[in-house]
């Protein structure tokens, strides 16, 4: 059962989302732009001043005159330092703020993503979007964007300054630089996939090494030494090839950029020199233009350093924004819910459900009376777990209805739902928070006494050993599997639903732990309606009714004795199991 891949936002949507982010902090954004331009501008006064000094020297000026110009050069540098500081500070603040807004919005969306999209392949994808992608975008906003804005402002102002000083030389310089946008386009079109491949190949190398590390015992036990060495060599060869590919891209890209800026300087000098000799330009102007064009390499290099980061962070941003379309509109809060369950009966009516295209449930009908104990059995893939999830309101049926007391379970918000139906599985997440917070999720107003009582009912004797009781931080003090299961069951007790859906809560535990957990479970299910998904037949034997599922349909429904008495598929399953346990059963009845 694989969840559908999470979507990635289209480029139009990405642009709109980026624009929304900027617009929500519009004034700050404008101020950042302006200060950056001012700082870049201050940095560009110096070459012009040096040009003026050259002219003055040629004109045979006094030392006092030169001192005035020299002082201006120093003042310009000081201004650049001060304004540059402000520009950067404001840029960082803007970036940090935007990154914070982005991650908080992301967390809100995570909460609204339907459960099934999170499971299976989706969980890893979701985690990587919430961590790696979010970190990359934050990094871009914090570090890349301010640098980029500064460099762009600098480059732009240099070009404007050159054109103002001498339109002819400006034109010459710009023509010489024309190769840069061309090669940049060429590079960016290839760089993304090449760098992604490089990162993937490097991750693969790390993965192979981590695999050897984690599986060293298996390598020894199974004699996999040679295969492991070969896998490592293959990963290294792939990483080498991927790195050489990006190196080839840079081998075209960097020299073209370097040569272009050199060409601009050379051409400007040549043309400017001839114009000077023809008395059409002052030597100072030629000097200033040449120095400006040389200075252009600084912002160009900065842009090149960050353009790749920005490009890949744009891809990450698209992945984060993709979650927007997965998130459901905010669930109604408890007060808004208009349908209120009127009794405790569960009714499943002609329910169909599909994970990817094909239905896995084909029109299931089922009534469960309050207080009944129903076991659902069947082979793997028959749809037992799916049915359990639908009854517990985790997933919404494609068609048909699942209701509790007349209200659709999928419409109930968690705070409502937990009073009626709760799904208990072997997965039991413990949050990295104090034990108290882990429990009050299910009952925000529960007193400490109530919390302790819930743990006590379950026989959670380990509670005595916790260093800080209910305040013990379970992020630092990690619980074992059985203890975590106790926490999960205590939450169920505190939520106090009238119906429990049990999906093999103990299947993967070792026997001793399983027995303890089963005892704990027994404490939680007293007096409730039980719908138990059973992989082992023992669980089914004593249920009030057994529902046998085959290929997405309930094919048999009845008490154990009735089903065994007739020639059902349950009867043959039972025969296989009871062959070796019949003796034990006689013991039980004695």
């Amino acid at each position, binding site marked *: 059962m694989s969840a559908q891949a999470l979507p990635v936002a289209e480029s139009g949507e990405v642009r709109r989302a980026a624009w929304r982010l900027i617009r929500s902090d519009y004034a700050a954004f404008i101020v950042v732009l302006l200060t950056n331009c001012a700082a870049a501008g201050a940095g560009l006064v110096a070459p012009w001043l040096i040009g003026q000094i050259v002219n003055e020297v040629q004109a045979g000026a006094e030392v006092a005159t030169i001192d005035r110009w020299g002082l201006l050069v120093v003042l310009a540098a000081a201004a650049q330092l001060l304004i*540059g500081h402000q520009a950067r500070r404001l840029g960082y603040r803007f970036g940090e703020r935007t990154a914070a807004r982005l*991650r908080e919005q992301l*967390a809100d969306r*995570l*909460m609204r993503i339907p459960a099934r999209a999170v499971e299976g392949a989706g969980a890893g994808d979701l985690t990587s979007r919430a*961590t790696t992608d979010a970190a990359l975008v934050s990094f871009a906003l914090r570090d890349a964007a301010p640098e980029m804005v500064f460099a762009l402002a600098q480059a732009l102002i240099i070009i404007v300054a050159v054109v103002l000083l001498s339109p002819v030389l400006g034109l010459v310089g710009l023509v010489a630089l024309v190769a840069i946008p061309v090669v940049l386009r060429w590079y960016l079109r290839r760089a993304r996939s090449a760098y992604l491949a490089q990162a993937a190949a490097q991750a693969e190398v790390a993965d192979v090494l981590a695999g050897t590390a984690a599986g060293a015992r298996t390598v020894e036990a199974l004699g996999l030494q040679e295969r492991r060495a070969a896998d490592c060599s293959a990963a290294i060869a792939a990483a080498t090839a991927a790195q050489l590919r990006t190196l080839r891209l840079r081998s075209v890209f960097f020299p073209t950029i370097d040569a272009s800026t050199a060409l601009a300087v050379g*051409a400007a000098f040549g043309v400017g020199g001839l114009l000077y000799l023809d008395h059409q330009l002052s030597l100072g102007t030629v*000097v200033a233009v040449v120095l400006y064009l040389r200075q252009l390499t600084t912002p160009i290099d900065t842009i090149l350093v960050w353009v790749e980061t920005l490009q890949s962070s744009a891809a990450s941003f698209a992945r984060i924004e993709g979650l927007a379309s997965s998130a459901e509109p905010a669930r109604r809060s408890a007060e808004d819910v208009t349908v209120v369950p009127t009794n405790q009966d569960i009714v499943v009516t002609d329910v169909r459900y599909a994970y990817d295209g094909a239905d896995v449930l084909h029109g299931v009908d089922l009534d469960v009376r309050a207080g009944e104990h129903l076991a659902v059995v069947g082979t793997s893939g028959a749809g037992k777990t799916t049915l359990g999830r639908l009854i517990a309101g985790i997933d919404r049926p494609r068609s048909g209805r699942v209701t509790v007391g007349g209200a659709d379970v999928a419409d109930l918000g968690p705070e409502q739902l937990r009073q009626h139906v709760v799904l208990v599985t072997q997965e039991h997440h413990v*949050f990295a928070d104090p034990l108290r917070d882990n429990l009050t999720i299910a009952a925000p107003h529960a007193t400490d006494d109530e919390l302790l009582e819930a743990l006590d009912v379950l026989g959670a004797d380990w509670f005595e050993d916790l260093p800080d009781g209910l305040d013990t931080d379970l992020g630092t003090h990690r619980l074992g599997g059985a203890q975590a299961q106790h926490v999960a069951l205590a939450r169920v007790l505190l939520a106090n639903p009238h119906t429990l859906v049990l999906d093999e809560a103990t299947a993967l535990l070792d026997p001793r732990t399983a027995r303890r957990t089963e005892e704990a479970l027994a404490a939680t299910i007293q007096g409730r309606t039980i719908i138990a998904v059973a992989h082992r037949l023992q669980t089914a034997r004593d249920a009030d009714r057994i529902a046998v599922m085959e290929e997405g349909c309930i094919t048999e429904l009845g008490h154990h004795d009735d089903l065994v008495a007739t020639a059902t598929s349950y009867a043959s399953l039972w025969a296989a199991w009871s062959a070796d346990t019949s003796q034990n059963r006689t*013991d039980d009845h004695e």
Partner: protein
Amino acid sequence: MKTPRSGPATFTGFLLIDLVIPLSSYYVLRALGASVWTALLVGAALPVLRLGVSLVLRRSVPGASLFTLGLITAGTAIGLMTADSRLLMARESYLTGFVGGWILLSLLRARPLVFTATVGFMPPAAAEDWHRSWETSETFRRAMRGMTWGFGLAFLIDAAARVVMSYTLPLDLVPAASAALLAVMLAVVVQTGKAWGRRHMRQSTASPSRPYTRGPWSYLAWLVSRQSGRVTLGAVLGSAWMVGLALPPYVISRAIDSLADGQRNVVLGWTAVLLLVGGVLAGLSIWRHRTMTRVRMDAALRTVSEVNAHGIRLGDTMTRRSLTGEVVAIGGGDAWTIGRSLTATGPGVGAVLAYAVIAVLLLRISVPLAVVVLAGVPVLALVVGPATGRLRTVGTPYREQQGRVTGRIVDIVAGLGVLNGLGGKAVYADRFRAESQRLLHHGYRVGRVTSVIQAVGLGLPTLFSAVVVWLAARLAVEGSITVGELVAVAGYAAVLAVPVASFIEGALDLSQALVAARRVTDFLAVRPESTGTSVPRGRGDLVDETTGLRITPGSFAAVATAQHSDAVALVDRLGGFRPGATWAGQPTSELDPAQLHEQVLVADNDAALFAGSLAQVVAGRLDVDDLGAAALLDALHTAAADDVVRGLPDGLGSGIDSGGRNLSGGQRQRVRLARATIADPTILLAVDPTSALDAATEATIIDRLTRHRRGRTTLVTSTSALVLQGADEVHLLADGRVVASGSHTALLANPAYAALVHRGAPPAGAHDPEVPA
């Protein structure tokens, strides 16, 4: 012929006295205003002196020294013959031409010069090897002669290029260009020879090099020695490039001065030179970058390869000593940190050279200005450098908070199931927002410090340049320097920041790499714990002393215990991972691990699955092609894993992710079992091989497995009645001892056994009085 005491020292001395000192004295003398003549004579004097000393003290004429003497006398003689400074510039052409001729002439002698010269620089033992190779190997002799031809011709070509250069380039450019040409040519010639020699030695002795693990420094040295040719080339290119950075301001200043003089005819010439310099620098820059990228890559991946190989050697020792985290850290970042540090070998050397060249250029313009710049830039770097280091400190709480925010969001994603089912979303949304806002405030603080440091880091050098320009402008208006030189000084001050910054950066890289290399060497120094060497005798009972378990050859035994850890420890002993068990009387832990595991296979419940095609995963240590698809499918059938093959897009050829991530828990378990059965060991020890499977599948597997293993010894641990009933004999383990043995049916009479295998009966709720029975 006498051999010098140590190769590298002699070689360095040779370079220093015959190349570096003559060249630098030339520049210093020129800067101080001496004529080209005097400079050249003084430059040549030192090598002559050195040769004289060597002659007197050693009373011998070593080949290398004679060769140098020939070079210098020929060059000086040519220099004395004429007063033309262009010809004098072309002097080195005659020298390299002389070298080329000398090398080619040596082909007439018994052993060519490439052989005798290289042997001259070698440690005695290695030299012995070479002499032996010369006498015994025709390939060796042919290659030596071929290389001598190649080197001779290379020197002749260099000579020709230099003559052309001397007569075409501007006079002041020639020494620099000529020096660069000579440096590159020497590096290429020497390194090609060394690389070839190494390859030959590897072929003849075939001893793979183990990394030096005495400490981080020696490990880095080993990484360099693996690719010394490339590292040297990187250093040469890095130096040439950095020195080259000083060229544009120099050329621009000269060009502006000739413009100021109104020389129309030279404008185009200077433009061409500007373009040429720009082009050469772009080429040097990318060549350097390519070389250093390969250096980094080689070091990083070689580290990964060594660590992986050592991890394989360690086997279970690694798991026992909890070294997994160390290895993951090395693969995750340390390897690349180490790789990056080797880059410092280039810029490090280059930075010093570039600083020296710029110093000379500045001294030629104005001594006071030079003093201000040369002292000022390093002082600035020392002020700004530590400030950059402070960024790291300031960033620490920020990164920690970042970790908390990330941890929080991972926690939320993992707990979404709970939040969806039981509520608490609002609480967690608020908590995340609070953490996020804390990160924002840390971010503001970092931004405040970062912006100051960056503004100062960029601004102070600019401010410094401004002051230098002002000083230079005063000198210009007084007429002590030209307008062009004024422009050049500003350029030099800016360019000088590059080598100084890269020197500091290199030092930082190196300090981090030492920490990473320490981790690597510590890991490589770990020795495997299993030291068994005895050869297993084979057939006999497998006996565990701790539990009293005895398994006879050819039987299918099962162990049932409520304590999973007891079962794991038992199999550990039987499989020789821990002492305490014997096989045919021999303690298993004293047997050679490789030979033991070939016959006694331990199939852990959570054994690792490595990435690869399904066929490769199942084949394990065996070859996929040798086995053939039928055998693979058969093994998968035994493990009731036919549906795994069917469910994957390309059947046996489908890729399995590392850890079997793209399989379900039950599928993983069956694939592990198939892998264990196909290896067909004499003894198979399987821990809970069906724990994640449903009853029907368990029954199928036990049925097929007992048939498949007929005639060989098998032990499975389990608490499932279906598995236990298939075994010939079942042993019940309680409190670390075998307390009962017999068939499953017979043991069911034992209450403890019955309770163990029939656990998981209906939940107690079914017996609740409220629920009808």
